[in-house]
């Protein structure tokens, strides 16, 4: 409804007592959009790398994510296999078709049966990579793309995310800069902080509302 569009914009301008934004004023707001000034960033995550990793772990655990830190990529298949065994989850996992995950030698743990691709809702466990981890609140930063279907982040009851220490940043703003550097804005950016939860019945917090009941983060030390 282009009639509505022009009427609404016209009313906004009328109420603000001016015409369209032009001249110097326009240059100022356009410059603000270009420069994207950062606001106040909490000092909490202003630490060295080790401090940021520790903060990430502490914050993620405080929202009921479970964490397993492993020394090398080779340790990932066992970390996944042990997790499945511990929670009685059977052998099947649905993995993101991610080249880094595919580069791991999964044959070390032959009991883990891997299929790849998006989820249709029948998978019990998903394994995905992450784009970044944000120490400030223990938040995982994932985005959609050919190697990272969004359905894997929400449909399975158990979501296992493999994150590398080199991907951990302090504040959210650093993750935005990394994403901009990587290319265009993807269809979906998911910031995930703990498993799905609800407080909608008498304000009792319960996990596993519609998304994963469990969020498990395997952190690989890659220096």
């Amino acid at each position, binding site marked *: *409804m*282009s009639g*509505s569009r022009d009427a*609404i*914009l016209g009313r*906004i301008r009328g*109420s*603000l007592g001016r015409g369209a*934004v032009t001249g110097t*004023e*326009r240059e100022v*707001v356009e410059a*603000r*959009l270009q420069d*994207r*000034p950062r*606001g*106040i960033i*909490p*000092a*909490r995550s202003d630490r060295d790398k080790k401090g940021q990793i520790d903060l990430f772990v502490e914050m993620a655990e*405080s*929202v009921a994510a479970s964490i397993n830190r492993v020394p090398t990529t080779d340790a990932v298949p066992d970390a996944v296999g042990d997790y499945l065994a511990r929670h009685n989850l059977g052998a099947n996992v649905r993995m993101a078709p991610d080249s880094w995950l595919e580069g791991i030698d999964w044959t070390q743990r032959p009991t883990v049966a891997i299929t790849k*691709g*998006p989820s249709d*809702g029948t998978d019990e466990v998903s394994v995905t990579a992450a784009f970044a981890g944000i120490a400030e*609140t223990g*938040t995982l930063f994932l985005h*959609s*793309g*050919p190697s990272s*279907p*969004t*359905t894997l982040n*929400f449909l399975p009851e158990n979501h296992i995310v493999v994150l590398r220490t080199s991907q951990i940043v302090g504040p*959210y*703003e650093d993750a*935005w800069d990394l994403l901009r550097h990587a290319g265009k*804005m*993807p*269809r*979906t*950016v*998911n*910031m995930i*902080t703990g*498993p*799905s*939860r*609800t*407080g*909608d*019945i*008498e*304000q*009792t917090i*319960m996990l596993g*509302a*519609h*998304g994963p009941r469990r969020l498990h983060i395997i952190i690989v030390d890659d220096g």
Partner: protein
Amino acid sequence: MKSTARHFKDNARDALADAGLQSALGKMETGFVVNRANAAARLPEFEALRDQGRDIKNHTLQHLDFYLETFEANVLATGGKVHWAATPEDAQQIILEICQSVDAKTVTKGKSMIAEEIGLNDFLEENNITPVETDLGEYIIQLRNEPPSHIIAPAIHVLKEQVAETFFEAHKDLDPERSLEEPQALLDEARAVMRQKYLDADVGITGANFLIAETGSSVIVTNEGNGDLTQTLPKIHIAVASLEKVVPTLEDATALLRLLARSATGQEFSSYTTFSTGPRRQEDPDGPEQYHVVLLDNGRSELLGTEFQEVLRCIRCGACMNHCPVYSSVGGHAYGWVYPGPIGSVLTPTLLGVDEARHLPNASTFCGRCEAVCPMRIPLPKLLRHYREKAFEEKLVPAVERAGLGIWAFVAQRPALYRWATGMTTRILTSLGRRRGRFSTLPFAAGWTRYRDLPAPQGKTFQQQWSAQSGRRDRNA
């Protein structure tokens, strides 16, 4: 949704007499209020972030047309569509046409206050499209055929026994002997029932906590993940949002996100914060094929440049109602329309008119807690006072009340008369009340004494005491 704001007084009386509601509301102080205070205390920058949040919103509102046009251009550039709706009816029609274009039978919905404002569910049903609310609280109240009573906890008025009753009633194909005593059993049942509905839906409709001009993205914040399933699985994702949801950049949205969860639930960050930009890309393995944003005005453009512009900063966290003594006594339904609590008492007269909602600005003790906790520093008491004045000016206040105020104003403007009248009244009340120390009935004060006793004055008026001390603050100074 049809308003009953006009009947606030009756609504409030019924709410106070409703034992179940009172028990449900009793849990608010120990939940939201304590959690918010703790979250704010954990972040030393919290107060500075509030100032910054206010400034970001003020800047955006001052250039709202520019940022909306930028937003629109970027949605188009990523393959999405923007639809402008001046009124709720326009928005209904736009959404219906999109749904009909794919012959939609069912629509899943993430929580959206704008969809409530539009009255979307009823409208879709009238057009043979079944809307399915996916947020657990919204699902419960949809089954109970009730409106939400809180903007972030829509079923806060419902007890778990009532949820169980509702589920037994609605989920007829499940074992009638099953146990639904524990909240966990209720959640598991809702999760199982809902799962297929997500997969079956033709269209997913969400709200938006923010729109980002820089990227053309809509942002939703949830804890359940329901909004994500709603906007990922169906062929079409429609985001409905009001104009003032736009912010310039990802950095600006991030700054406001630091305030939102802490103010709302006291969480450091909600479980899921999701940025959606356009439809799925050609190479994407999942995601919707179409992405639409419906921008609703519904009177907001006319608030710019007025004293009510400040309400457009609201990020819908619900802190004002969580901290409001009136809300926590009467609950959200008493307010009679979509938005309850202090923000509702400003928004409802703004969007529906003072005539419909004139009682709401009076539903405040002016204790100021709402303003003290508002992350966007909206001066809610000041705005409520504006509406009280407006209602008086527009002669919407009943004649007796107006006459009373007129007499009071006449006396108050004449200091000698005022001193004489208050001195006289105090003397009479002091002597009449000497024996009991209080009054359980008094002429002209039935509104007070019907609910509580009026303490009898003890001695002299303030002004008499003041002049006895020759205007000194402290007798011993």
